[in-house]
């Protein structure tokens, strides 16, 4: 037997509002009213209709259709605030028992790379949040944007997770296939690697009319899946959930594709769908896999340069972690929560300058006109935050 393992990433950041260097406000109101608008729009175009398709598929194939999700804490928080209906529809999916929720940092942050204690705190907060909403505790971990290196697997193992997912980067895999389960070196922790070719056929190329495989039908994709038979235990299809209805619009036929895919995949008796926990229980670990560099699922380089490749990003990241001790010292929940929301990786991604002049995918996902505007807005917010923080600490000492 072999299993198709879908994992969908659901994330929405708290984008910052336009903030001037001359703004002297004293509250912690840094977030854009646009967040509500965007969330409701994406819920309508993607989350709600796609959840419905998945729910119907589970009703149709209760024994054979499974998917996994990672829902960032900041996305869940926005569902709760702006679209409780969306949160309910995810709850309904989880209640079927066919859907697994993965663990991650609540704030979709880069803490795994920059601050271990902070990483642990945010993972715990996320687990608590998932438990609160869904009544389950995550067993498999997915770090922000699939950022991974050996030591991250080891940290996650220390936290009790049974497995972690990562990018099947070519230079790491070398001659090996992503279609098996591997092991974090020296740990009782499995490693599941994204098959980026087949994942990206859906996530990026589905509606590309210049692609030689266009149009991509469920039947054609299923035939590619079946070709793996005998040469792999798992096919890990990891992608942004917004692929359905947002990146690939409804009129591209993406929803029909999703609806028909299980039918064609399941026509082959050796294939089924599995959650990540089911897959690691079912298939053996074939060997340890070393990740000797930081990888992610971004760009061709599969590295971290989209978040920390230039000096304005590096400065901003350095600054945010530099004030950690002061923030924690304040013991103010609102200060700590706000500080962590500014850690969300998207804020640094918006500052990415590579390829900016070409107007590529980075620009498409940014609320700013340029990476420099993103940096300046971030700096203005951070400067104000630091002032509010300093004021609060000063007052506490006076008391």
């Amino acid at each position, binding site marked *: 037997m072999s299993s198709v393992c879908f994992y969908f990433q659901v994330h929405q950041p708290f984008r910052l509002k336009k903030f*001037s*260097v*001359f703004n002297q406000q004293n509250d912690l109101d840094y977030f854009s009213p646009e967040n509500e608008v965007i969330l409701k729009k994406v819920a309508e175009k993607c989350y709600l209709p796609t959840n419905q398709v998945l729910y119907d598929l589970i009703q149709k194939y209760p024994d054979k259709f499974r998917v996994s999700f990672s829902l960032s804490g900041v996305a869940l928080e926005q569902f709760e605030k702006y679209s409780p209906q969306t949160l309910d529809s995810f709850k309904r999916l989880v209640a079927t028992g066919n859907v697994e929720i993965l663990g991650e940092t609540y704030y979709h942050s880069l803490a795994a790379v920059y601050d271990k204690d902070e990483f642990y705190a945010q993972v715990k907060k996320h687990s608590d949040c998932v438990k609160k909403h869904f009544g389950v505790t995550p067993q498999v971990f997915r770090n922000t944007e699939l950022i991974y290196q050996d030591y991250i697997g080891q940290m996650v193992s220390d936290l009790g997770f049974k497995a972690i997912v990562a990018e099947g980067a070519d230079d790491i895999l070398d001659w090996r296939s992503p279609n098996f389960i591997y092991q974090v070196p020296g740990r009782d922790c499995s490693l599941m690697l994204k098959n980026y070719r087949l994942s990206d056929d859906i996530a990026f190329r589905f509606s590309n009319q210049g692609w030689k495989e266009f149009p991509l039908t469920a039947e054609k994709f299923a035939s590619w899946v079946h070709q793996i038979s005998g040469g792999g235990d798992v096919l890990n299809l990891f992608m942004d959930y917004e692929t359905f209805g947002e990146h690939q619009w409804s009129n591209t036929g993406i929803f029909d594709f999703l609806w028909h895919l299980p039918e064609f995949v399941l026509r082959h008796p050796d294939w089924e769908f599995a959650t990540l926990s089911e897959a690691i229980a079912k298939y053996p670990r074939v060997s340890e896999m070393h990740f000797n560099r930081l990888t992610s699922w971004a760009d061709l380089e599969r590295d971290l340069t989209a978040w920390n490749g*230039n*000096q*304005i990003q*590096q*400065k901003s990241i350095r600054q945010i972690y530099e004030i950690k001790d002061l923030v924690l010292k304040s013991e103010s929940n609102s200060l700590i929560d706000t500080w962590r929301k500014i850690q969300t990786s998207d804020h640094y991604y918006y500052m990415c*300058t590579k390829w*900016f*002049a070409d107007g590529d995918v980075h620009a498409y996902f940014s609320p700013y*006109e*340029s990476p*420099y505007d993103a*940096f*300046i807005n971030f*700096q*203005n917010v951070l400067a104000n935050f630091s002032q509010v923080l300093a004021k609060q600490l000063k007052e506490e000492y006076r008391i």
Partner: protein
Amino acid sequence: MKVLMLGWEYPPQIAGGLGMACEGLTRALAGKDLDITFVVPQLYGQEQATHMNLVDSYTLPASQERIVGQKLERVYVPANLKPYWSNHDYLTSLSAFDSIQEYNLSIPVAPAALNRPPGKVHYGWNLMEEVRFYADRVIHAFAEKEFDIIHAHDWMTFPAAVALAKLTGRPLIVHVHSLESDRSGFGSNQEIEAVERLGFNWASKIIAVSHYTKNKIKKFFGIQDDKIGVVHNGIYGRRTKEHYISQKTNDQKIVLFLGRVTYQKGPEYFVRAAQKVITEYHNVRFVLAGSGDQLDSVKQLANDLGVKDYFNFPGFIRGEQIEANYNNADLYVMPSVSEPFGLTALEAANFSTPILISKQSGVSEVINNSLKFDYWDIDRLADLIVNALKHDELRQELVTMAGQELKSVRWDVAAKKTREIYQELGK
């Protein structure tokens, strides 16, 4: 191929970017199979243009009232021609170009006795007189010469160019470096706009220095899209930052404005922003270099806003002085109200100085790695200046990335596009 180019200025005697652009473009264009004759109203002796035949219109023979030559016999000379026209008369005549039928063309004829008007630079109260004078000399000197294409730079040369195109049947390219509406905003001189319209209507092809300018021509003059090509200006690698030893002795930051001190360039926004900047960033000096009709009022404004002590007003600067200023600046600001291109911003970037430019500019199309703002948004301008001064990393990143873009902003790229247009018209 022989190209007759009609221009209005040539370095080093220039009032703005027009002369620089003409030098850059012709240097890259000339050679191979292309001969350029470039006529300017007047030369001053320091010009270096071995790549082409640079002609001073004052050395051309002035026409007589009686026009000679077979082709020219068809030219209609208005009976009311007076030896000394006022600007108004002349413009009335120019406006009449619009309705003139083929071969029934009115050419202003200056009397042989007319001497060079006073003033060294050909802009000013007597500009119309100059335009008339230039047209007269050029038309009569070149109507019977051999050339394949007429390429005219900005409205001052359009009367001469249109007349020559009609007389000779040669294709006409009008090249737009700036529009009257850029220079004067809502106070545009309608007569000048009439000359621009004349050029656009009669041209075989229009070259705009930016999409920004192309869109204005489409919008305000109703010219169809495919008649207008866009050829961005370029830049030559000249002396770079390494050539200059920094004259800075402290960590005071310098913010530079360099350009004509006129409505178009937005100097007032620069001064008003400075007032806000110093509330957040103190160790700063603003250099406002250039001269123009708003210089006095801008100085007065700096005084009234209490920021005079933060300002230097070096006046009109040239050559090495300009380069030294680019080099010393920590930030170059171009708050233009309407900037067809904005060559100074490109030059500043070429000196590894980060640039902050208005979105209402052509250069913002070619240097994306810049700080951009809407020229009227003084708060935003001040915000951007403060942040640029505060964060070394921001300035460095801008310079590094703009440097990559500059590699493809070259005059040979502009020349290649221009040659393609020549070839298209030559068919």
